[in-house]
């Protein structure tokens, strides 16, 4: 600089912010609408991540509660195997495996259950009858909705417990009226109704009696078709390997071993796949929001040519003008982003409440969402800002 006390043009930070807000203050509706695009994009991303995280944590607590150490042993089904049954000795043999804590056997009883003795025999309602050991419910981590589960005293007197779906189909809603069901040609009192059993949904559609009762009254042969095995959590895989030869040393390939919690894990994985899809849609919405801001900024620069010219005449440098417009775009994006985070959190909270999940918004969604909004704002604002800065003062002041 050629001396004589000429100081470079400069602005205070507060003034930088104030001038960046001029366009937003004078065109509030337009500013709100262009920020809305970003809001929708960020809200959908936050909501998708929040919902998937909340639902996943719900599935994980479910897994925690149920335990991943439960194995199910069933007779293999396939061509040439017939209606396979497990060998009589299966239950005893399995309980001798070291890391196995509990074994509970379930057998199918060849009988049907009806609401009354007047219902035609063909209308069995798809309800099966199962003979179980009294520790079954505990092994499965199930609970009763009403009454109690079977115990050994019930051996003397025939009694039945209904799965949740079975109870509904048989019209048993409560135990106050001491309901009876017509099972295998005689009346059985219902002593309990189960809640849905997550690890063994087929029990939901079953009428359940003890083995002793089944043998005494229903002609049950005492041969289990399914074993529920609780193992030491450290040894689950090893136990899975030795189960088939233990259950059926002659034909180990006719024994199926499965782990019910795998299904829940698969569900969690499937939800992740959907999450990615919706996340992609959210990103597209965000991009469209960014284009909206760029569009509004380009128009704003065209409309405010004379303001740009005036500012240059008042001593603004190109950089001052560029910063003003870039910051305006950034404010728009930031307002949109904050709105989006709030909206997304609100949607997640509302949905989680409906589904009874715990609310969980990952920090990544919040900070990532805001960062994405600012990045989009920068990109969207850069071109209009540079265009405004490149405008020559005389051209900007020329009004036609």
């Amino acid at each position, binding site marked *: 600089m050629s001396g004589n006390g000429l100081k470079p043009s400069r602005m*205070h930070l507060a003034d930088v912010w104030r001038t960046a807000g001029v366009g937003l203050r004078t065109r509030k509706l337009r500013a709100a609408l262009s920020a809305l695009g970003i809001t929708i994009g960020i809200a959908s991303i936050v909501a998708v991540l929040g919902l998937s995280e909340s639902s996943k944590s719900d599935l994980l607590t479910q897994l925690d509660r149920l335990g991943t150490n439960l194995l199910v042993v069933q007779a293999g089904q396939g061509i040439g195997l017939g209606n396979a049954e497990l060998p009589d000795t299966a239950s005893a043999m399995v309980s001798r495996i070291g890391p196995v804590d509990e074994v509970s056997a379930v057998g199918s009883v060849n009988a049907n259950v009806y609401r009354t003795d007047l219902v035609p025999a063909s209308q069995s309602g798809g309800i099966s009858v199962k003979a179980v050991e009294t520790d079954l419910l505990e092994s499965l981590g199930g609970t009763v909705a009403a009454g109690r589960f079977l115990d050994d005293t019930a051996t003397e007197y025939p009694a039945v417990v209904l799965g949740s779906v079975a109870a509904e189909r048989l019209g048993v809603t409560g135990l106050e009226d001491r309901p009876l069901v017509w099972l295998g040609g005689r009346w059985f009192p219902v002593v309990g109704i189960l809640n849905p059993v997550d690890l063994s949904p087929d029990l939901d559609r079953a009428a359940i009696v003890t083995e002793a009762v089944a043998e005494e009254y229903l002609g049950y042969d005492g041969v289990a078709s399914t074993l529920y095995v609780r193992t030491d959590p450290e040894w689950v895989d090893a136990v899975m390997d030795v189960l088939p030869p233990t259950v059926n040393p002659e034909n180990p390939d006719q024994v199926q071993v499965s782990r019910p919690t795998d299904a829940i894990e698969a569900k969690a994985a499937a939800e992740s796949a959907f999450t990615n899809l919706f996340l992609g849609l959210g990103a597209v919405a965000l991009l469209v929001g960014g284009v909206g801001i760029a569009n509004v900024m380009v128009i704003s620069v065209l409309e405010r040519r004379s303001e740009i010219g005036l500012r240059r005449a008042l*001593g603004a440098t190109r950089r*001052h003008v560029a910063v003003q417009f870039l910051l305006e775009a950034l404010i728009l994006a930031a307002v949109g982003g904050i709105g989006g985070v709030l909206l997304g959190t609100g949607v997640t909270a509302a949905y989680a409440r409906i589904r009874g999940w715990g609310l969980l918004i990952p920090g990544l969604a919040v900070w990532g969402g805001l960062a994405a909004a600012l990045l989009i704002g920068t990109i969207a604002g850069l071109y209009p800002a540079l265009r405004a800065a490149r405008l020559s003062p005389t051209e900007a002041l020329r009004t036609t």
Partner: protein
Amino acid sequence: MSAVLEMSGVTRVYPGTPPVPALRGIDLRVETGELVSVVGPSGSGKSTLLHIMGTLDRPTAGRVEVGGFDVSRMSDRQLSALRSQRIGFVFQQFHLLDAETALDNVADGLLYTGRPAAERRLMAADTLERVGLGHRMRQHANKLSGGERQRVAVARAVVGRPALVLADEPTGNLDSKTSEAIVDLLEELHTEGITLVVITHNPEIAARFPRQVALRDGMVEADSARAGVTA
């Protein structure tokens, strides 16, 4: 007397086919404290001259010195600094920010000088009093009449006590009575020591000023100072 503005051999040719010469060899010297009118028909190069005087545009050839600074050797940033501290502008269209109060509009005249906000507003309030708008300070610009708007614009141009104030058809959008009042105001500022160059196509207004420069076809056709009619 020292020159606040000195132009010698200034030409400005707008590129095109064929190139359009707007200024063709202007020699002009404005001393500190002068009040000069520049008159001429449209197309005579008045606005181009004003833009070059105000460093908003650069000459194609020739030398321009404003407040002792050789404009041709200054960068865009340095010119911005020069404008912020040494030059004030008054425009025909006022160019006020409608969303801001009269006070803030005037204070914006100092926005890029780096002065603190409180000081800017204090100076702005003083200047508004001086142009007779002390009672309208808090009014938003879009609530003001045309004459009031131009007074605010004049206040904005002089608030930083610039070495040179350039007015481009300051009465072009005003009725004759308000025009009269604005011209009175400019004369008043002149008596307070402000150097003014006023562009106008209105010969009556031009005639009221001590010195008239007549432009035609991009050249100085007549300059009352050169003719010996001193202010």
